[in-house]
């Protein structure tokens, strides 16, 4: 079982990883959009230890933390985000299109499109009769796309081993969820699809782990899909460069203080008797690890122009 200290360590590494990505923005090493999960670490960390290699995750445009928890190797992951030939996808995918077939990890940059692909992995496990599960991740905004309904209809009808993990950071770019949906939660949609739904505090990795673990076990037992909704606050803009004028300053300031999963975990660990110096060391180690990684990646070459037309097809054209 993953302890809160382990969760804290993982979250510290995740945040340090995201901060490395942040460094690539002003330098234009990441020359397009990048969507970071700072503030949302507890949700990804809550999955730690609960998934196997043969389980799949299909994630979103905000995917780095999910890749980390799925075991995607960090060196080629960061190199892909930094558009390097040494990246997981040889610099062809970039940060929104991370594919690691060895760990059954993928994502899509199109909001609302991850769940159907995850359902395909779930269908594969169901066909094979294994107890592997598929996790489809969506923001709360993505659950208003039609594909959410289509996927839940099929997954419920066929009792597919699918866990839909909804990261509810309250904003679809600028649009607050309560302005566009009638229900209090996304999870309460579950029963109409024959699924189980639960909404948890997504700043608490232990709460996420408990709810997510139950959903995974339910799927492994062949009892069908679940929706696990985890509430959180996105600390950065939707993407780096977002002016983010749509969220009140006071709301952001208060969220940074009250909804930071690292600060919350640190406080809880202290209450449980953890040594402050030890917690500092965990954070320092995480930052040193990621700084070293970033230095390595920065030394890697970018793809050369002569390969620009490669990989459209797997087979040669006659």
């Amino acid at each position, binding site marked *: 079982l993953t302890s809160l200290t382990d969760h804290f360590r993982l979250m510290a590494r995740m945040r340090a990883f995201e901060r490395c990505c942040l460094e690539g923005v002003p330098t234009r090493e990441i020359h397009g959009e990048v969507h970071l999960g700072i503030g949302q670490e507890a949700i990804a960390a809550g999955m730690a230890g609960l998934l196997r290699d043969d389980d799949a995750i299909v994630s979103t445009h905000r995917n780095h933390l999910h890749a980390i928890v799925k075991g995607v190797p960090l060196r080629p992951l960061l190199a892909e985000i930094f558009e390097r030939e040494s990246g997981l996808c040889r610099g062809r995918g970039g940060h929104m299109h991370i594919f690691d077939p060895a760990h059954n990890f993928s994502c899509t940059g199109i909001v609302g499109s991850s769940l159907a*692909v995850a359902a395909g992995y779930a269908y594969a496990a169901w066909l094979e009769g294994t107890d592997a599960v598929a996790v489809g991740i969506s923001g709360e905004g993505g659950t208003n796309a039609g594909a959410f309904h289509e996927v839940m209809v099929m997954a419920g009808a066929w009792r597919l081993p699918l866990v839909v993990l909804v990261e509810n950071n309250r904003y679809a770019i600028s649009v607050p969820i309560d302005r566009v949906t009638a229900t209090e939660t996304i999870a309460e949609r579950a029963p109409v699809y024959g699924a189980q739904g639960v909404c948890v505090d997504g700043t608490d990795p232990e709460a996420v782990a408990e709810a997510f673990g139950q959903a995974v076990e339910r799927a492994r037992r062949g009892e069908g899909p679940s929706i696990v909704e985890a509430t959180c606050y996105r600390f950065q803009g939707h993407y780096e460069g977002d002016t983010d004028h749509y969220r009140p300053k006071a709301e952001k300031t208060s969220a940074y203080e009250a909804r930071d999963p690292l600060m919350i975990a640190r406080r809880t660990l202290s209450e449980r008797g953890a040594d402050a110096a030890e917690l500092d060391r965990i954070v320092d180690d995480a930052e040193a690890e990621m700084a070293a990684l970033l230095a390595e990646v920065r030394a890697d070459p970018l793809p050369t122009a002569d390969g620009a037309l490669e990989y459209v097809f797997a*087979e040669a*054209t006659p």
Partner: protein
Amino acid sequence: MTELRVRERNVSMAISDAIALEMERDERIVVLGEDVGRMGGVFGTTRRLQELYGDKRVRDTPISELGFTGMGVGLAMAGYRPMVELMFVDFIGVNLEQVYNAMAKNHFMSGGNVRMPMVLKTAGGCIGSAAQHSQTLWGLFAHLPGMRVVVPSSPYAAKGLMASALESDDPVVYIEHKGLLLLRGADFAHGSQVPDERFTIEIGRAAVVREGADVTIATLGANVRDSLLAADELANEGIDVEVIDLQSVVPLDADTVAESAARTRRLLVVDEDYLSFGLSAELIVRVLDRVGLSGLDRVERHALPDVPVPAAVTLEKAVVPNAGSIADAVRRLG
């Protein structure tokens, strides 16, 4: 080589035979779509498959095209070979997202690490069902990189191209023609004799279905049969027409067309898809790249003139290429 046992088949039977042979050979093939199971397909192209291979490998889906096309993408990534059926190609508006952003791009976006052996099987073409159920749209798929696009013109081509599509490691859009699906085998002057055994037709090779010296018609789908009928009529007038069945739009076999057109010096491209920004212009440019601007005396195209397909039969006949209109187009070439 031993002789294959051949018999007359219609397009629908040829397709279901091909899928059954492939499913027998490769248990990773899974069929998802509306009415593909209990009913065996609205045109019978998946008949008996559910009976033979069970309802997990041949799955009737709800009307959730975007959802089940995305499931096909996930199945392919998980090591399966899904065939997803979109009943009519006109419905592509509802699932295009998974087709062009995932199925077509995942191999590229992964730097070649993820294979997408997936077939999108769909029916196109005119059978009097007006603007929303008559399009062919192969030019649309061909415009978007990452998909093979095949269009069978006969029972023989339908079977061989389906086998190739299902064994391809790349995504293949397989567009069967509704008009051809409604014909009997005996209605075909070409390709009605189909081997019982498995065979493949290489994707990206055109076939010369009628040799001729005066004019080259390059076309595909139902217009191949129409062009052969037109060629018979024109033969009585002393015009000797060569008819090339392109068979696939991606890859496009411009070499075969260029070789023929360089001989006849007259090229007519017949396309049931919309005229502008499509196959007809693309093929002509590629042929000119090969034979040079002085390599041809006449070049024309005959395609759906950028208008939705109308309901009234008189209007439909006025805009959709058919044997009579193709013969007229050849006569206009002089």
